[in-house]
């Protein structure tokens, strides 16, 4: 999120500099991949989405308006692409069992890895709007202002969605744990 450095690299890309392109990919592939994964809940889909995001970014680099932050633009494309894939997937296949019933094995220990899996599963139960703000806040580390810029929403809407999303997550996590035998 170094605005000046990004601007210089983007400018070089506009002149066909592939090294600049490579640096931007190197800088943003990890955060884009992580955001995509937390929205899609699947590594392969996240990798596909990340590739598509960067193809779109560089295909449209000539149209990018440098008055806006590059990372906001990239994230906006990443969020839109991830949500598009979610919609396509809903049309193509039912949710995995793991998404509708995350707690399959009551004997499993709630170790760190398992806990992360359960939080991710709970995240997948949120609607797209709520999941998106949570991902941008907690995975991408964006501020309210940045989330607002990326999603083109007023800050108060961002705050409101974030509050509701956290409350829903809390309820989901609690209800799941209560329903789990032996807890």
């Amino acid at each position, binding site marked *: 999120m170094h605005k000046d450095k990004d601007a210089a690299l983007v400018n070089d890309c506009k002149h*066909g500099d592939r090294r600049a392109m490579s640096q931007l990919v190197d800088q943003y592939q990890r955060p884009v991949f992580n955001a995509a994964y937390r929205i899609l809940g699947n590594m392969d889909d996240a990798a596909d989405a990340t590739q598509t995001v960067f193809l779109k970014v560089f295909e449209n680099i000539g149209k990018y308006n440098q008055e806006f932050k590059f990372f906001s633009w990239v994230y906006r494309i990443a969020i839109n692409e991830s949500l598009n894939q979610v919609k396509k997937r809903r049309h193509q296949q039912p949710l995995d069992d793991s998404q509708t019933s995350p707690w399959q094995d009551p004997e499993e220990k709630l170790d760190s890895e398992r806990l992360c899996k359960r939080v991710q599963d709970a995240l997948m139960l949120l609607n797209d709007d709520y999941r998106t703000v949570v991902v941008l806040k907690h995975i991408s580390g964006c501020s309210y202002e940045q989330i607002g810029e990326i999603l083109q929403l007023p800050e108060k809407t961002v705050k409101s969605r974030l509050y509701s999303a956290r409350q829903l997550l809390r309820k989901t996590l609690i209800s799941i744990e209560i329903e789990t035998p032996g807890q």
Partner: protein
Amino acid sequence: MTDMNEQNKNSQAPVDQHIQNLLNSSIDAEINVIEQHELDRLLENSENVRNLNKDLRAVTSLLDGLPELEPPGYLQSAIESQVRLPVQSDIDEKRSFVGGWLNTNWLRTGFALAAAVVVTVGIYQMGSAPLTSRDAASMAGTVAKGTSLDQRGILLDVFRLDTDKLNGLVELRNKNDLFTLDVQLNSVEPSEMVLSFAGHGFEIEAVSGMQETDGAVSVIDGSVHLAGIGEQHFTLSLKRTSATGNDTPLELGFFANNKLIQKAELNISQD
């Protein structure tokens, strides 16, 4: 989550929007001094707000504890191999694409070492007799007859391929009775380019190639198949040995994962 369970037993009364905003701002460290004072007073005086604060912080802590994942190792190179940067003119674009491609480390190494291990398709000197399609078909890998690639002649036609799965550039040049096809492909999935030259009176003079991974060249029923994955560069020389060959365009087919994704034609006359 144990805390949340215990707190859940004490049902929480809904709080107004203002308190929600204060709690959010505090948790996300976006609160100012005045707001913090106000929230401190609320926390001191209201068990409901205290419980809510604890719950929200517990959820936040879980979310912040999600690990950052490492993207697949292939991702960066897969992205870079597919990206086409816009440039100011068609000529510049072509130069940029080729130049950028040639600048990649593996290819520089490949050129420098020529027949080293990284070059999966070797170059074999053949006898003085022209190479026939049958000769080529019987050979695994690439065949060549030592054709000079420095004087490839005039540019007859160019085809640029730009799809999600496969992109690249094919140039057809002619000098005297020699037609040279320069093929550059980038693909994530296994890909293949098929050139049909039946009826044109051509014999294969030479084929050379370099690829990131294993590639293959084969000649089947009047068509040459160039297969590979990743960045690929083939040079195919066709010699016109029959005056009766027709001047209809050469047909190209591009396949990704054995599925035809694009057809093209290359004009072999200067008209």
